[in-house]
Structure formats: structure tokens, C-alpha cells
């Protein structure tokens, strides 16, 4: 677990410095350099990065390929949007779309969301509860790997279909939009938009700090152990299901908060943001940045969103090709993401610098072997389960080699 080692001991000062740098960039540089429009765009990217942080924990560290984060993102977003709609309508008022499509009456389960504290609590509690129930049901029965991925994807599909189908209470395909204020602050005022950016940036930093603490804790080591050899962890007396549920719930909570903040930043939430396709799109950035690293998912998600926005402006259909190609190239050929390249570069200089690279007939074995082992250790922490080399005869035989 070299990556863990890097993070713990010598890394503490560097981590603090990293946080300080990120804070300066987000709070001091970005607002000065970027126009209001671009700053709002960055806020949107940071919201998506929150989902990515959670995925990094669940998938990169925990090996749970969750293809349904859009559900938690969507739950957080819709709860926030419902509250904003009710707040805009005033006490006892009815949101505009309900009079348009429905009976003009607010359904009972909407009512509690009129209160801001209830809505804020629900944003975290509802998605986390759903993740806990689903995760507990699935993980204790040892449904994992591809099976879990497919189930989580089905959840996203069902959620999006439900939202579209219940137009009278969810706004249907159009989703919820046209928010005028955010907890009393006028959303048309650029100053308030800036304030929201600061909130988003601050929340993201807190999330990264939480995940960092989780990663270096005992829990983080257990999570990686469960990913790599679930049965061994079970033999040691731990309950792997519990470890997985915790990681899954944390990831869900982060996705939900990202979704909730997405609403005032972007001004609309619709089924198109939460279904199967957007749910899996969340993974691109995580895969590119380096799924098992701390900052890889964040930077990857921001970079991918930025690339998507700028490419879509000039070539509308080009982005889908790029996105597809990114999935193929990064996952097939660089499973550790760009972070694994950084790791490789960092490890090679001692060998590479003293002698110039020998010719093809020379003795190139040593440096090349070093580079290869460097790559191997870099991917060892990131590669999919099944990577561990030590044999576990009974287990492997029983699972037929195609285990998750």
C-alpha cells in the first residue's frame, strides 16, 4: 500500500500545504480572474467534483463500481429544488408547475420541505438512508462486483423513469427550474451567486479533507483490504459488508450535497441530470484523474466538465466521441488514471538520471525493470480486485477465476 504510506507520514505537511494552495486558488484567485459567468460554471464543476470525491472513495478505494450515483445526486438536488420552489411560492403557496400540470394542491410529502432546516437535513438523511438500506441488503448477501454495478445502474434507470412518470409532483421531463431565491438571497444578484460559489468551494474542501482522513484511518485500510481480498478480511473477523456500506453511504451523502448545491448554481434539475447516462458519466473524471487517489477524482471531474463545456460550445456532437474515447483509452490502457503517470515519473528519476539511456543492444534490463516495477506498484493499489498475487487456493478455485 505505497499510496497509503505516501499519504500518512511525510505527507502531512504537504497535505496541509496542498489544502492551503487549493483554498487560495479557489477563494482568492478564481473570483478575481474569472468572469461571473465562468465563476458560476466553475461552481457547477465543483458540485460535480463532489460526486467524484465520493465515487473515488467507493469505487477507487472500496472497489464498488457504483453506476447509480445520479440517484443520490438527484435526491439531494430534488429535495433542495422542492424547498426552493416552496419558498418561492411563499407560506401556503403552490409551486407554479403544480398548477400547470396537476391539481394545484401541494402533496402531503412535499409539505415538510417548506421548513429550511427540515429540507437541509433531508438532503443528507434521505439519500444516505436509501444508500444504507440498499447497501446493507446487497452487501450482506455478498452481491458484488458486476452484479452490484448492474443493480446500481438499474436503480438509476428506475429513479429517472419515476421522475418522468410523476410529472404532477416532480415536474416530469422538464424537472424543476426557475428558482428566484436561495434561502432568502436573490439568485439574480451576481453578488449572491459569488457567495454560492464560496459555499460550494468550501464544502468541497471539507469533503476532500473528510475523505483524506478516512483514507489514512484504519477504516481506509480496511476498505482497501476488502476491495483486494474480501474473504481474507472476513477470515480476520471483520464484517466486510459493514465496511462497504459505510463507504457507500459516505459516497451517497457527498453526491447528495453536490446535487443540492448544483440546484442554485445551475438553476435547473431534471431527469436528464440523474439517469443512467449522467450517472455513468460521473465516472469518466474519476477514472482519468486516478480512481484510488485523493485528488485525482476532483481534478479529473473538473477537467472533464471543463473540456465538455468548451468542446460542446464548438462541436456539439464531438464531445460524445471524446467521452467515449476517454472511457476506452483511460480504462483499458491507463487504469490508474493520470495520477499513476505522476507516480511513475516520481519513481523513475533515480535510475534514469545517472546514466544516459543505453542503446538497444546494451544492458537495459535494470532501468527498464525498475520502470516496470514502478508501474506495477503504482497500479497495485489501483488495479481492479483480482490483482493480488498471493494465491488463495480454495477461494480462487471456488470462484472460477472470473470473480469480481
Amino acid at each position, binding site marked *: 500500500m505505497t499510496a497509503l504510506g505516501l499519504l500518512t507520514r511525510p505527507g502531512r505537511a504537504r497535505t496541509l500545504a496542498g489544502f492551503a494552495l487549493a483554498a487560495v486558488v479557489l477563494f482568492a484567485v478564481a473570483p478575481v480572474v474569472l468572469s461571473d459567468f465562468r465563476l458560476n460554471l466553475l461552481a457547477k464543476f465543483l458540485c460535480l467534483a463532489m460526486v467524484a470525491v465520493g465515487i473515488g472513495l467507493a469505487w477507487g478505494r472500496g472497489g464498488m463500481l457504483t453506476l447509480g450515483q445520479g440517484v443520490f445526486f438527484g435526491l439531494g438536488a430534488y429535495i433542495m429544488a422542492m424547498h426552493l420552489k416552496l419558498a418561492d411560492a411563499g407560506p401556503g403557496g403552490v409551486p407554479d408547475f403544480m398548477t400547470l400540470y396537476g391539481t394545484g394542491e401541494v402533496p402531503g410529502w412535499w409539505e415538510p420541505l417548506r421548513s429550511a432546516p427540515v429540507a437541509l437535513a433531508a438532503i443528507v438523511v434521505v439519500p444516505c438512508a436509501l444508500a444504507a438500506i440498499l447497501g446493507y441488503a446487497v452487501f450482506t448477501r455478498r452481491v458484488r462486483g*458486476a452484479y452490484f454495478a448492474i443493480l446500481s445502474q438499474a436503480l438509476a434507470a428506475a429513479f429517472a423513469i419515476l421522475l418522468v412518470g410523476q410529472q404532477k409532483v416532480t415536474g416530469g421531463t422538464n424537472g424543476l427550474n426557475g428558482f428566484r431565491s436561495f434561502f432568502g438571497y436573490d439568485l439574480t444578484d451576481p453578488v449572491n451567486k459569488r457567495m454560492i460559489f464560496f459555499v460550494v468551494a468550501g464544502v468541497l474542501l471539507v469533503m476532500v479533507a473528510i475523505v483524506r482522513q478516512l483514507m489514512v484511518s484504519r477504516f481506509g485500510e480496511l476498505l482497501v483490504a476488502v476491495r483486494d481480498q474480501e474473504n481474507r478480511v472476513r477470515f480476520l473477523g471483520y464484517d466486510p459488508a459493514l465496511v462497504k456500506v459505510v463507504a457507500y453511504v459516505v459516497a451517497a451523502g457527498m453526491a447528495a450535497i453536490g446535487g443540492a448545491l448544483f440546484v442554485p448554481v445551475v438553476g435547473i434539475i431534471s431527469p436528464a441530470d440523474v439517469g443512467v447516462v449522467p450517472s455513468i458519466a460521473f465516472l469518466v473524471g474519476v477514472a482519468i484523474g486516478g480512481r484510488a487517489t485523493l485528488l485525482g477524482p476532483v481534478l479529473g471531474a473538473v477537467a472533464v466538465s471543463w473540456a465538455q463545456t468548451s468542446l460542446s460550445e464548438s462541436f456539439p456532437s464531438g464531445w460524445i466521441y471524446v467521452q467515449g474515447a476517454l472511457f476506452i483509452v483511460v480504462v483499458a490502457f491507463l487504469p490508474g488514471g493520470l495520477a499513476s503517470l505522476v507516480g511513475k515519473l516520481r519513481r523513475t528519476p533515480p535510475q534514469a538520471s545517472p546514466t544516459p539511456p543505453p542503446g538497444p543492444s546494451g544492458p537495459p534490463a535494470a532501468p527498464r525493470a525498475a520502470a516496470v516495477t514502478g508501474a506495477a506498484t503504482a497500479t497495485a493499489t489501483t488495479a481492479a480486485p483480482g490483482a493480488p498475487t498471493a494465491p488463495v487456493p480454495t477461494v480462487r478455485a471456488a470462484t472460477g477465476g472470473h470473480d469480481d
Partner: protein
Amino acid sequence: MEVIMSQLFAGLSLGSVLLLAALGLALTFGQMGVINMAHGEFMLAGAYTAYVMQGIFADAGVSLMLSLVVGFLVGGTLGLLLEMTLIHRMYDRPLDTLLVTWGVALVLQQAARNIFGAPNVDVRAPEWLKGAVDILGLAVPRTRLFIIALAIACVVVLALVLKLTPLGRRIRAVVQNRSLAEASGISTKATDRLTFFIGSGLASIAGVALTLLGSIGPTLGTNYIVDAFLVVVVGGIGQIKGAVIAAFALGILQATIEYSTTASIAKVLVFVAIVAFLQARPQGLVSVRQRGIA
């Protein structure tokens, strides 16, 4: 009685569509363990094959029958290319295969959009499939009957191939014990490729069949991929039998719930039912071997 019959038929009809979509997956995912997210786009390839064929052949019946054959070859070839370029190097990383094939799916889908246009297109049904037949007082559309028959035919042929032919024996051998199969002289590489060819070809046959049910568009594959995977998960891996039972069970369940509520609620309830079912049988309905030491 009539209500029950019509619901049962709606369920059978939906089940046969699910079965056609999932049959190829039962091979590639169930037997080989490859999660091919581009499976839906192979269905799309079949559907657009039918669309192109009707431009070449004036007679809709001839075009449909030829489409089934040509579609199988088109889908199979696409699958073969995918296996040879990407999947074969990732057999030990099933989850990553999922993401890579999703990337392939995105590219194929966008390519279809650029070639055939984003709006839906229609494929004419032949005269002899128009109208309905009267079965026990129920007006049953002929296209639905055709799809049920096609699904049964595909299952029977596939089962016979797996059971009786040398290729089928090789496939089963590789599934049951890859290294032993290899040691006894079976080329697992060639077997993998052929299996993948057949599985992808079956997806395209499903796509051709779907053109009988309505217009087709670039998102056709995405609409079916999740359900198709659920069928295989519920059915259990390793045997075609599981997929057949699961497809019809899910079809009837969906149709029945849909009757008393709405389509969107039914989707959610079916999902809940599946999670509950996996509580009882995590390995699915039918399984030849345990996954993990449960």
C-alpha cells in the same frame, strides 16, 4: 378471465422482447463473464440493418427475413471486432470492461446519430404480420406473436448448438474450467471469439425484431440494456434456462403491476422485487456454481 389473459399475454410479449435482448448477454455475460455495455448498440446495429435492408428490397417480408440473417452477421462482426481489439485483454478486469464497452457504446450510438440522423425512423412490417389473430377471444397482434416465436426459436437453436455441436461442447468446457479446457487442447481464444460473435449476433436479431414494435432511434440500445442485464442477473449465470425463466417472470411481473398502477411505478416496484429476490437467492434463479464462498 379476459383481463388475466390479456395481462398474461402482455407479460409474455414483453418477456419475449426481454429474452431476445438478454439471450446474447446470457452468453457473453453469463458464460464468459464479460459485461458488454455495447450490447444495446449491437441491437441498434440490427435495427438499422433492417432499416437499410428495406431500402434495398422492395418486399417487406423478404427484407425482414434477410435482415435477421444479415443483422446477425453485422452484430456478430461488430462483437468480434470489439473482442479482438479491447475485451480480450481485459478478461481479468470485468468491471473495467464494463466502462470500456460503455465508451464503445457512446461512440457507436453517436455514430448512428450522425449516419442515420437523430429522429426516429420506421421499418415497414410485411403484410402477413399486419393485423391481429383471435386467440381465446383475445385479439393478439401478429407482430407480437412473431416476436414470441422468434424468441423461442432463438432459444431452441442456441440450446441445441450448446448441447450438441462440437462448438457448444467447447464453449461449455471453457466456461466450466478454462485452464483444464486449454490443457486438453481447446483454443480458449478462438472459443471466446466465437462465443462473443454469437452473443453479439443475437443482440442484432433482437434489434431487427424491435423494428416491428415501433420506430427506432439512436437511443434504442440504452432503453433495453439495463433490463437485459437485470434478466441475466435474476436468471443466474451459466445457463440459458435461467435467462428464459427470468425474462418471462419479469415481463409478466412488469405487465401485472403496470395494469394496477402506472408504467413508472411498475418499473420501481420490479426493481424492489429484484433486490428482494437477490436477498433470497444472490446467485440468481439457476446457477451451476457458487460465486465466492457463500
